[in-house]
């Protein structure tokens, strides 16, 4: 096993003379990343959404929770009866769709960020322990992860959300729990691949403690797949949280979370399609952008797929 991997490792002794300095890793990364137009597009969209999210309070034309009782179910501006006051129309109790979508962006980005951070932290910890110590710890942790993986992720999220009670925070927790195994497995695999390499053995011999070995020596060397997974994790988190919202187990009205918005105006599907269309498009665009970015990162970071 070790022989197989050591062929990939950097040469133990440096070459005597470097003819030309290799490009800085970041430069190299950027070079590969730039090639991928989709990923670049995804990045731009994400930055845009992030800006909207951050400045929602400034740029939103209305307060997302104010009900304009005389403008209930106003259609978007380009349809008959639409007005410039409510660009994308209003919902069933007269709230401005555009403003709600902007605040919703804030929520979705927050959901993504918190879920990824939480699940990454826990998954990373479990994966490091399993991969590094092996033995009983490994067996217990990985069996546990298998068990979580055997349940369809949405089903598990639904059950966890039912336990914690409906609400935005609980939905985030539920979604986090569901994705932990992915990070744990990935980390473990990466650690296992690294742990027997010469540089690790060298630091071990030099007397580095397990904590140092885990966090400072091994971890930085298996970041690439985790970064990719974390980016893709944003999209899963946003999708699943929206699905929970749709099932009534996520954020509760009047929170302008996109899935919840969609669910609470379902009954107006026929009369006012825009109340259902916009939140869906918002979810789709955001998730798609993160997936594009994740794909691009994978291609740029994973040397095997470099062409």
């Amino acid at each position, binding site marked *: 096993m070790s022989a197989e991997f050591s062929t990939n490792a950097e040469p133990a002794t440096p070459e005597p003379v470097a003819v030309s300095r290799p490009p800085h890793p970041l430069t190299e990364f950027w070079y590969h990343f730039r090639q991928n137009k*989709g990923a670049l597009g995804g990045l731009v969209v994400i930055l845009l959404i992030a800006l909207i999210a951050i400045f929602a309070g400034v740029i939103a034309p209305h307060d997302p929770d104010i009900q304009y009782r005389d403008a209930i179910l106003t259609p978007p501006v380009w349809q008959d009866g639409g007005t410039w006051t409510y660009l994308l129309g209003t919902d069933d109790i007269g709230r401005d769709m555009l403003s709600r979508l902007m605040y919703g962006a804030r929520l979705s980005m927050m959901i993504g960020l918190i879920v990824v951070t939480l699940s990454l932290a826990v998954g990373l910890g479990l994966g490091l322990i399993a991969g590094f110590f092996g033995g009983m710890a490994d067996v217990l942790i990985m*069996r546990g992860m298998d068990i979580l993986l055997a349940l369809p992720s949405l089903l598990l999220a639904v059950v*966890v959300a039912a*336990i914690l009670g409906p609400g935005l925070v609980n939905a985030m927790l539920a979604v986090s729990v569901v994705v932990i195994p992915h990070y744990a497995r990935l980390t473990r695999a990466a650690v296992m691949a690294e742990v027997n390499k010469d540089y690790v053995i060298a630091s071990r011999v030099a007397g580095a403690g397990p904590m140092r070995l885990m966090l400072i020596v091994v971890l930085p060397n298996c970041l690439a797949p985790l970064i990719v997974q974390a980016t893709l994790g944003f999209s899963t988190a946003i*999708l699943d949280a*929206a699905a929970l919202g749709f*099932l009534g187990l996520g954020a509760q009205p009047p929170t302008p979370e996109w899935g919840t918005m969609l669910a609470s105006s379902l009954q107006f599907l026929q009369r006012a399609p825009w109340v*259902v269309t916009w939140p869906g498009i918002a979810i*789709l665009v955001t998730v*798609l952008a993160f997936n594009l970015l994740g794909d691009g990162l994978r291609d740029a970071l994973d040397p095997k797929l470099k062409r």
Partner: protein
Amino acid sequence: MLRFILTRVSLVIPTFLGITFLTFILIRLVPGDPIEVRVGERGIAPERLAAFRHELGLDQPLWQQFLDYVGHVLSGDFGLSLVTHNSVLSEFLTLFPATLELALCAMLFATLIGLPAGILAAVKRGSLFDHGVMGASLTGYSMPIFWWGLLLILFFSVALGWTPVSGRLDLVYYVEPATGFMLIDTLMAGDYDAFRSALSHLILPTIVLGTVPLAVVARMTRSAMLEVLGEDYIRTARAKGLADGRVIGMHALRNALIPVVTVIGLQVGTLLGGAILTETIFSWPGVGKWLIESINRRDYPALQGGVLLIATSVILVNLLVDVLYGVLNPRIRHAR
């Protein structure tokens, strides 16, 4: 060979026990007493409440309840629903064919379109078609399917009136359930109008549930094909002057199929998860909708049994895929 299979099967047993334990604990943690939920504002006398709790074994210590539960489950008894008082297993089995029919159709839809699309994209790598397939599949993969379903209903059912809004069969037809698969039952009854009705009810849910697997299959097929097409033996075959169609059909496809089949198998979990949303949107009488309703009614035995049965079927399918993969690919079998 047999040893390989036995090892794989033995690995499943602790997972199964773990799942049983997990669902048991999870469901005990759901707040709300099922009896209290049932009686609503009129309440219940403490003596009667205690009697019911005793009847249901809820007054036993938790470990005792768990052991009892495992014992019953192993003998095929998943308990009685608190709401309908029917056996959970029989309720599951009544509804499961509906979910299975939908899931199989979705998988068929995904494979029939995804496979050729992926192969073509790989062969015409870099072409407009390739970009189109990749773009479409990434969009499909990013799709919030509950919204997608609503859009389709709005367009095909409401605006065009082509497909029915919800359900499995028009009410004017009545078919004695034999297999539980509406398509087969209607055919067996020889009622072709009913068959057409069942088919038209299946179209939209199939598309909705099949969207994500379609994207996955197309992407996976493409990359597997690309990998195989880059292998030496393909280049040799090409160098020998074999026609492209023959190379792709005979050599490349056969080898590329292995990972694709695996991926298709592994989509079962995704499908069953997606079924919760799809069934909710289309009022499809399957297990997904049933589970959501069980949560709302605090019907613990139904919820617990349902989750356990679904997890078990996912485990079994994964096991099957795993074993098949080993059979198809000797390298894996001997690696361990």
